[in-house]
């Protein structure tokens, strides 16, 4: 049954590589910022899936903290795009 | 419309929204998996009927969650206040004094009116679902 979780991990890793490609390539800064956002969400999903895989008790605590502070990353990237202006 | 029907309206709205998500996802996927691009992007200024920040935030979040549409921002400035003469949209929104506007980016609507109808439909259903006494109250 873990094979299903393994498939999901594989798909998310491919999505991760795709957003890494966009960060390296991305013509504008906004493209890089949004790819970085997707990179964070992919990391959260990978933590949840690996947590199931190794039957860790701390999985959902880590994901909870990520859900709490994750949007700060997007907000700071937005501020960086604006060079500190509002 | 009353307190009694509210839970059913609320659940019914989310069921409708889930179906709408699937439909929008299929549109985006079909464009992405076939060669070439057939998106027709554009931005509209949408005059909302939301009262208060909570309803406005919910509407903006729902628009962003739907694949293919995106909220760009909000303003209370009336259209035409800083508009060049001959620009679009001077006829569309009369604008109440305390009206709020959303800027919505859409990808798969042929023109501004189609996107406006889509957001209007979503807003009507959302307001009918979240307000205890119904959408037109």
């Amino acid at each position, binding site marked *: 049954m873990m094979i299903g979780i393994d498939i999901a991990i594989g798909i998310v890793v491919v999505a991760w590589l795709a957003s890494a490609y966009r960060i390296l390539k991305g013509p504008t800064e906004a493209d890089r910022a*949004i790819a970085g956002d997707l990179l964070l969400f992919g990391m959260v999903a990978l933590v949840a899936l690996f947590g199931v895989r190794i039957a860790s008790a701390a999985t959902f605590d880590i994901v909870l903290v990520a859900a709490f502070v994750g949007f700060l990353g997007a907000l700071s990237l*937005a501020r960086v795009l604006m060079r500190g202006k509002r | 419309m009353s307190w009694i029907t509210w839970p059913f309206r609320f659940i019914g709205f989310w069921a409708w929204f889930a179906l709408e998500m699937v439909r929008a996802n299929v549109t985006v996927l079909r464009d992405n998996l076939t060669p070439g691009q057939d998106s027709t992007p554009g931005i509209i200024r949408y005059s909302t009927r939301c009262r208060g920040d909570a309803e406005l935030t919910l509407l*903006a979040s729902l628009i962003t969650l739907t*694949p293919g549409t995106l909220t760009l921002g909000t303003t209370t400035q009336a259209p035409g206040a800083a508009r060049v003469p001959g620009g679009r949209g001077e006829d569309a929104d009369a604008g109440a004094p305390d009206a709020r506007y959303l800027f919505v980016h859409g990808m798969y609507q042929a023109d501004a009116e189609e996107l406006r109808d889509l957001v209007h439909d979503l807003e009507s259903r959302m307001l009918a679902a979240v307000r205890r006494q119904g959408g037109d109250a």
Partner: protein
Amino acid sequence: MNALAVIGTVLAIVGALIFATAALGVVRFPDAYSRISAVGTAGGLGVVFVVVGALLTQPTVADTVKVALIIVLQLATSAVGSIALARSAYLTGTRMHEPRYDELDAE
């Protein structure tokens, strides 16, 4: 192997597929706004599906409470982050790819 674990695995794969859709959008869409739109969907729904799927494979009461909190927080904050990015992208003058209409122009 019980039915809940099967449902959980299916949900995790659906969430991963939502991520794949967003990644495809990030690679293939022509401009920044359509890419932000794709990520806005994946950030909210993809994470929620994956986390609920992960919970259903090994459900406990404490984890259920945490997952309920995660769903509310994730849906509320990911959309706000995407909107903030889209706003600053527009204000810094990122161009749309072949726009058909733009009512925010000249404001």
